[in-house]
């Protein structure tokens, strides 16, 4: 393999890797967003129904 060929080959490989990286990155982002959406759905299910009253009534005496 000539020097020229090797450089082209490396370049081609690198470009393929770049494409794969971008794809993996967007998949990870989509997955995280989907996970967060599921989590927010779950929070809706368990969050205190009357948030305002819950927050207002949560009063502690000071501690250490």
């Amino acid at each position, binding site marked *: 393999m000539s020097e020229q060929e090797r450089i082209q080959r490396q370049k081609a490989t690198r470009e393929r890797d770049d494409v794969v990286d971008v794809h993996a990155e967007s998949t990870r982002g989509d997955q995280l967003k989907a*996970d967060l959406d599921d*989590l927010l759905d779950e*929070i809706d299910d*368990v969050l205190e129904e009357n948030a305002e009253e819950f927050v207002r009534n949560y*009063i*502690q*005496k*000071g501690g*250490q």
Partner: protein
Amino acid sequence: MALPKVVGIETEFGIRGGPDGDPVTSSTLVVTAYARRMAAPIAWDFDDESPGRDARGLVAGPSYAPVIETHLANAVLPNGARFYVDHAHPEYSSPECRSPVQAVLYDQAGENVLRRAMAEANAELAPGERIGIYKNNSDGKGNSYGCHENYLVRRDVAFRDLVAAMVPHFVSRQAVVGAGKVGAELEYTRASRPAFQLSQRAEFFEEVVGLETTLRRPIVNTRDEPHGDPSRFRRLHVIVGDANLSPVATAVKLGATALLLAAVEDDGLAAFPPPPRDPVAALRALAIDPALEATIELESGEAWTAWDLQDRLWHLASDYAERTGAGAVAEPDEVAFLLAQWREMLDGVRDDHDAVADRVDWVAKQRIVEGYQQRYDLAPTDARLQAIDLQYHDIDPARSLAARVGLRTLHAPAEIDGAVTSPPASTRAYFRGQCVARYPQDVVAANWDSVVFDLGSGPLHKVPTADPLRGTAALTADLFSRAPHARDLLAALEG
């Protein structure tokens, strides 16, 4: 040589509900419900306690009479922990542990204790009187309660050196191990209108160094109560941290601090960064800036971010571990784990939140708060966002949001259950826990540095445990196996 870093965590839990809404009543119900499970109540021996003694040499406040308190709700657990009512909160003080990761195990065992205690108390209450318990540090209305860490330190290290070494860490570690908070609650912080803070506790600190823990809280607490031989030991009582729900965050909180303490014991102050010019202002300014862009002025005149300080401290700890092995803190694998997690979390909070949302409490909380806010287009002051903050810390798995965000675990559930009843093997907690488990009818009181027996006739017998590193399984397991009764143990100890 640095002393082995015996560590422990004391957590005051938030509490609401109960038959009359009074937190003292509810806390008492929770602790007594749990103590009833045990064979006999064991009191706390206040002899030798001196919370008014000051590490700077002054003695302030009242002296404490040597007295066994029997009217306060109190339990000494077979794992060596103390579970009791402190002020208006149920408090779990973990047994003395020999490494940060072990202390996480006993911190989580404490959450189990609170969960069981709450369930038992609630079983006897009407549905409208249900008690809820929260592992947090603030009610959002200006009232704070603590999660304190304790570290065994050499007595001959000058206290001012400990202060100089630890202040840069205590103001900046919230970037990695803060538990996060929606909004602000004290006037001077509210003026900046932060939507979110790194720390539950930061805005409650008003002094750099001091003795108080409930008023004018100091970044470095001077309570000089070693619970051991005062000529050799100091117990650094750290009140400036948040209660973490993330087990890895708890490990890094303890691990980073223990590594830095060991480094100052062995190498002195030379490699530490200079302290901030105004530590209290720095603590608050860093807390209200989750973007981590704020800089604080150091005594050298340089302006550093929280990240810069933590980065410098990480390198210091890492160099120390490389040179010495940091055996005072943990076994080599654990030291490597603690440093790796600290590094990843530090880089993640700046560069990639998604990569550390499974370990950094404030990132995990901020993600759901901001996600919820965007989904419903809520104002930053909407009560639902405050509710998410509170409910992140609910210890009831049916309600806890921390239990839903996918936090990484360090110990299997069965191991945590085991730690509710078994003490750590390599500190004096082993001796205390075994006494409580084996001779519940004969132990009348205990505290960190003694166990008191009543054999029914004659005087009380007090067994001192002044060295946190004795009373271990290696030293006493054989003794226990040959002592079916308390009198056999005492005879062997006295003989």
